[in-house]
């Protein structure tokens, strides 16, 4: 313990942080851009590193309380982790209700905190490629930043009369 490297011993595990799937999403992100007429748009910032992600969404309001996310785009400059997380998010979010989206974010948080059950949870789909973050806690905010922006954008879309700027 006393002689454990201060820079982290788990080299092999952390090499796996940058799985090919993450790099693919980073190089060619899905859902990049802005919706021209969003129902909600919000920016999440990480003041420590200066990264920001802006997410715009439209909602489909079906009968009764049946609200679903119909379109989503994101913009922002950031690291491979935040960009890949945002890109995968745009793939997974369409067709889900606000409740389902927040449940998904909760599962992602569990995954990033190293919950072994989340690592095999198929509802997370490609997001499981981010599981290596559990060993690099400094990068956790990067993976969650797009999801924070999504949460704020959906909140704004579902609460009428909200100003478009956070």
């Amino acid at each position, binding site marked *: 313990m006393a*002689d454990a490297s*201060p820079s982290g011993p788990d080299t092999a595990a952390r090499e796996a942080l940058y799985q090919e799937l993450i790099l693919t999403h980073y190089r060619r992100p899905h859902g990049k851009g802005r919706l021209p007429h969003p129902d909600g748009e919000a920016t999440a910032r990480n003041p420590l*590193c200066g*990264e920001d992600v802006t997410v715009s969404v439209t909602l489909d309001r079906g009968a009764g309380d049946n609200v679903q996310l119909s379109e989503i785009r994101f913009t922002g400059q950031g*690291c491979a982790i935040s960009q890949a997380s945002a890109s995968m998010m745009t793939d997974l979010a369409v067709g889900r209700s606000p409740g389902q989206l927040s449940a998904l974010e909760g599962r992602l948080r569990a995954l990033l905190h190293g919950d072994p059950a989340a690592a095999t949870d198929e509802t997370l789909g490609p997001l499981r490629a981010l599981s290596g973050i559990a060993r690099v806690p400094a990068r956790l905010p990067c993976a969650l930043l797009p999801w924070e922006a999504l949460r704020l954008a959906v909140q704004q879309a579902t609460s009428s009369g909200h100003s478009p700027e956070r």
Partner: protein
Amino acid sequence: MRRADFPLLARHPDLHYLDSAATAQKPAVVLDVERTFYETSYANPHRGAYDLSTRATECYQEARQVVGRFFGVDDPRRLIFTRGTTESLNLVAAAWGRSHVRAGDEIVVTRLEHHADFVPWQQLAIERRAAFRIAELTPAGELDLDHLRSLITPRTRVVAVAHVSNAIGTILPVAEVAALAHAVGAVVVVDGAQSAPHLAVDVDALGADFFAFSGHKMGGPMGIGGLIGRRALLEEMPPYQTGGDMIEVVGDDRTSWNVLPHKLEAGTPNVAGAVGLAAACTYLTQIGMSAVRAHERRLTTLASDRLAAIPGVRVYGPPAGGRSGVVSFTVAGLHAHDLATILDQRQVCIRAGHHCAQPLLRSMGVPATARASFFVYNDEGDVEALVAGVLAAQEIFGAPADDPPASAAGAAVEHG
């Protein structure tokens, strides 16, 4: 150069610590001196009803002498111990600034200030309805003295300037800045956080009316630093904080202040920190600041040349000789945070981000850079590990993409 003097580095021979601009590792002499103080001389100073307290007071006074002399100051009353540069600069902005800056006055800073020497002045300007002016940089990342000259007017009250940029390493011509400021009667405040550990500093020769520094970047303990001021300015300043130690007489409805330096040091002081900082100053003096500078200059030049030779890598700021021990760079197609994580896997510690200098990074047109910084314990092996790590990161991320577009403002350009 001196790795064996630093217990953490001696314990971890494979570690490449390249983040000394954030904080420096501690030589054993600093740790030993602090421990000895606690074991032999510890009590609350200035309450001297007994011998032990007198000994603690003497330790504190001696530390003040040693640290002051490190900066060329013989009168120890001119050194106010603080928690560090941030507190020192806030002290000047609050205590001196509020009592001297009025509506319509002007405050001048530079584009490359750390947030600690930018935000306090910006906020003071807002509060006092003073104008807040920012001196820009040349395309090479140096202070544009012509622009600065155009901003300084008879209404200028303060010119606040970093001695060395923490983000890109530029060494600023503080003496020339001071001459311009003094010509209109303005006060010169120097953020010395990044120069105190790396350059020989004579506060008065520099022309600084106030000079702020942090002990932890010099190899001293965390939580101690200082503010050196001109005696007359310190004498006329109202207190920054009030409470114990800083009073003379406390009446029911009024209080008079203690003499310098106590007037500006409310509460029980950080004597152990001061004693440790004095040991760090002595350690650096024994090496010799010109030797420290020469060593870091050699490593900075080597690292800049080696990195700039890698396709896709841009090194920011002036040529290496005009920088302190800082190499700020980007790698095309690779975000600085990803680079830092991959380097960390190889036991290379660097900083990634905006380096608490958002106004500068904005003007450079980059959201983040990677920053390697050097101190007395670094050597060529650290540079080689850094270069190898950058190449490995490029390998993981694939071939470098096209160079990102140069910044429109062009505040800092490629070097090499």
